[in-house]
Every structure is written in structure tokens, then in C-alpha cells.
């Protein structure tokens, strides 16, 4: 009787799109202990960034993670611009906001699909990803690629949008809005979804704060933190208020993300409508020197870039702290006591991006 079940969960596991290993100790099917192990996807990007020049690094950091790629590049560029004391033209700031929010839409829909996959709701997975194709197409139309936009560069953005494209964006937003209206209230009301999410993986506001939770995980527990509130890029001019829930369970995390989907549409529309005219980039001069910590809000939460230049073309140190890295500690507080069937749901409820985490 003394011996408990010990099972590996991951790295190769169909409900985990990315390799993460959890060593689970079970009593019947209840999780008694869960310890994570990562490193299956560690490349050494931070070191490589020291070897490439700071312009190329924008493309490199974009590939930290394929889901929030644009915002990685944005964070990096904002950091370099701060070191170079570059003033980014307003139109570039607005375009960056537009693409950031598109990325958030694509990321949240993707997450919704994966979550549905984790609790065995294949149809929801299909519907979420079907809606996602709309925004992915939109990204391809505006930026020329489905996922790796490559649009953010030091000093601004690389491509301008014509008025027709902006109109197409608005039209797409309306279309997405209709699709969301079809999908989201239904998901929130669905009995089986509620059964699987309500009360599962709950953490209190205090735990979330102490353990350094960020993004929707923190906001679902009532920690009203969203770095967009600081008004980087064009967020300061668009009237941004973070979405907050208080329950702290998986359902609240879903509620936050689903509400953010609408918010993203709103932000894109507002940014397109207010889009100033003018140049889209300035040419960077000189080389970065000094230290700077650049932060933005990714779909998964706050991302932190520490940049240190030494006056040369190459950076002295580039450190990336991604939101999932911060959310693993809260995850460890959620897992013990849950059912094995809830493990993938809880893991996905932090929207893990292991690729980000390990760089």
C-alpha cells in the first residue's frame, strides 16, 4: 500500500504541443506531487544573440517563440530603441499595436483550441482554429507571413499598410466579431466545459502574487496587472483597461482570455481608426550602449528583456524572461490535489509556451 503510482507526463504527449516533463505521483488518480523538468527545447538563443549584430537579433528573438513572435521582436526593438534613444514615428507605434493585437487574437484562439483538445472537445478545437485562420490570413495579407511576421525592426516597422489594407483589417475584425459572438458565449455557457474548468486549478490572489504569476493567470486571480496599461507603443492612446476576474480557477483564466479576444478586436479597430500618417521607421544610428530592461505584455503575460550593450554592434548580454517562465511557479501550486484528467487542463490553463521559457 505504501507504494504510490509514479508516472511520467511528457515530454512526448499528444495533449502537450510542446515538450514538458512532469513527474506525477498519484494516489488512485489524484495527483499528490508534481515536479516539472524542462530543457527539451533549450537552444541557447541568448548566447547566439551575443554573436549576431543587434539588427539581426530582431529576427532571432522573433523565433524565441512562434506564437507571440511579433511581440518578442517588439519588446526587443523597444529596448534597443531606448538604448539608442530613438524616437519611433507614431504610425510605426500604431502599426506595432495592430500587429501585436492580431498576434494576441491568434494566440488566444490557438490556446482555446489546444485547451479544448486537452479536455477532449475536438469540435471546439476545430471551431477555434477555424476562426483563427481568419486572423492568420489577415496577418499574411498585411505582413506577408502567416506567423513569423518579421515586421518589427529597430526604429519602426518594415512594411506600411495601405488604406485598402486598413479597411480590410476593419472588415476582418467585424467578421471575427461575428464568429466570436457565435462561439464565445456558447463556450462559456457549455455545461461540459464548465464541469471541466470550474474550481479546477484554483489559486488565490495572494498565491498568484507571491509566486509571481503574470498575464491572464494573474488577472484571473484578481491581480489587475497588464503591462499594456503603461501605454507602450500606442496603447496609451487607445483607452486600455485590463480584464480581471477573481475566481482564480481554469474557468476564470478562460474567461479572461475570451474577454481579451473582444478587447483585442476593439484595440485593433481603435488603432486603425486613429492611425496617424507619416513615416514608418527611422534609421538607427550608432550602437547600443548601457543596460535597459524592456517589458511588454504578451498573450501569456509580461515579457522581460534585459539588454546590455557595450557600444559595439553586438550586445553584451541579452536576457529574456518569458511569461511562462514566471507562471511555472504558480502552476506548481495548482497541480497537487487535482485529478490526473485535470493535469493537462491545468497545464494548458497557464497557456504554456515552453519554447519561450527555454529559449
Amino acid at each position, binding site marked *: 500500500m505504501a507504494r504510490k503510482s509514479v508516472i511520467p507526463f511528457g515530454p512526448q504527449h499528444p495533449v502537450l504541443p510542446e515538450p514538458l516533463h512532469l513527474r506525477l505521483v498519484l494516489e488512485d488518480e489524484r495527483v499528490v506531487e508534481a515536479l516539472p523538468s524542462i530543457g527539451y527545447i533549450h537552444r541557447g538563443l541568448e548566447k547566439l544573440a551575443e554573436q549576431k549584430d543587434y539588427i*539581426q537579433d530582431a*529576427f532571432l528573438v522573433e*523565433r524565441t517563440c512562434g506564437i507571440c513572435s511579433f511581440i518578442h521582436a517588439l519588446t526587443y526593438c523597444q529596448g534597443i530603441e531606448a538604448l539608442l534613444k530613438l524616437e519611433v514615428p507614431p504610425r510605426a507605434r500604431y502599426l506595432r499595436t495592430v500587429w501585436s493585437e492580431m498576434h494576441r487574437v491568434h494566440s488566444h484562439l490557438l490556446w482555446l483550441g489546444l485547451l479544448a483538445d486537452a479536455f477532449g472537445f475536438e469540435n471546439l478545437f476545430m471551431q477555434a482554429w477555424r476562426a483563427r485562420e481568419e486572423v492568420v490570413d489577415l496577418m499574411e*495579407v498585411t505582413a*506577408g507571413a502567416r506567423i*513569423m511576421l518579421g515586421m518589427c525592426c529597430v526604429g519602426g516597422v*518594415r512594411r506600411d499598410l495601405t488604406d485598402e489594407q486598413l479597411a480590410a483589417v476593419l472588415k476582418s475584425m467585424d467578421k471575427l466579431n461575428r464568429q466570436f459572438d457565435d462561439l464565445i458565449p*456558447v463556450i462559456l455557457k457549455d455545461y461540459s466545459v464548465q464541469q471541466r474548468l470550474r474550481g479546477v486549478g484554483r489559486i488565490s490572489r495572494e498565491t498568484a502574487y507571491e509566486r509571481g504569476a503574470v498575464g491572464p493567470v494573474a488577472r484571473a486571480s484578481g491581480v489587475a496587472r497588464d503591462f499594456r496599461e503603461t501605454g507602450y507603443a500606442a496603447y496609451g492612446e487607445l483607452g486600455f483597461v485590463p480584464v480581471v476576474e477573481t475566481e482564480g480557477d481554469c474557468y476564470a483564466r478562460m474567461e479572461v482570455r475570451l474577454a481579451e479576444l473582444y478587447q483585442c478586436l476593439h484595440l485593433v479597430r481603435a488603432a486603425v481608426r486613429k492611425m496617424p500618417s507619416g513615416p514608418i521607421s527611422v534609421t538607427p544610428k550608432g550602437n547600443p550602449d548601457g543596460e535597459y530592461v524592456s517589458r511588454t505584455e504578451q498573450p501569456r503575460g509580461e515579457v522581460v528583456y534585459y539588454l546590455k550593450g557595450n557600444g559595439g554592434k553586438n550586445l553584451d548580454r541579452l536576457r529574456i524572461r518569458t511569461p511562462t517562465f514566471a507562471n511555472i511557479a504558480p502552476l506548481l501550486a495548482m497541480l497537487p490535489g487535482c485529478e490526473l484528467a485535470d493535469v493537462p487542463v491545468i497545464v494548458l490553463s497557464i497557456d504554456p509556451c515552453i519554447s519561450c521559457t527555454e529559449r
Partner: protein
Amino acid sequence: MTFLNAIFRNLFSRPATRRYPFVKREPFPGTRGQLAIDPDRCIYCGICAKRCPANAITVSKTPSKSWTLDNYRCVICGYCVEVCPKKCLTMKQDYFSPK
């Protein structure tokens, strides 16, 4: 069970699927598909090779001039197109298909 609306709508409408190998969608005008070079205008300066973040391009001047792209390394960022002094590099819209 609230999913019934979507279910019956889908059941009684045409599938959303694009039957890909039989029906091909025209690429969007701005799509970055694959890199192409106009060899006539290339001066083999090597700037593209130096700037390429993925080191996918090699340019050699000796013994003979050559410009080589490793398509299995190129990340299709289009940076080389921007930096090319002669604008001899272009981005084609169709994607590079495996051999």
C-alpha cells in the same frame, strides 16, 4: 450541449475545407514565399550573405563568382531583399515545396 447551433449549421453547410492539392489558393500579393535572384543584376558584393540572420546565403568571388542560397536554412525574413544595393533579390509569392 449548447454547441448544437454550430453543429447543425456546419452539418448542413459546405465544409470550410480548401481541397488543397486539387484546389490551390492564389497567394496573397505581399506574401513572402521564397527568395529569388536576378543573377544579371547581382554584383556579388556579399552584403546579403553578411546580413542574413540565418547565414543561409553564401557568396563567393573566388575562384568563380557564385551566389548560393540554402533553401533548407532560409527563414524567409526578406531582410536580404531590403539590404541588397542592386535590388536584384526579390521575394516570390509561391512557397518552396519539398523535393
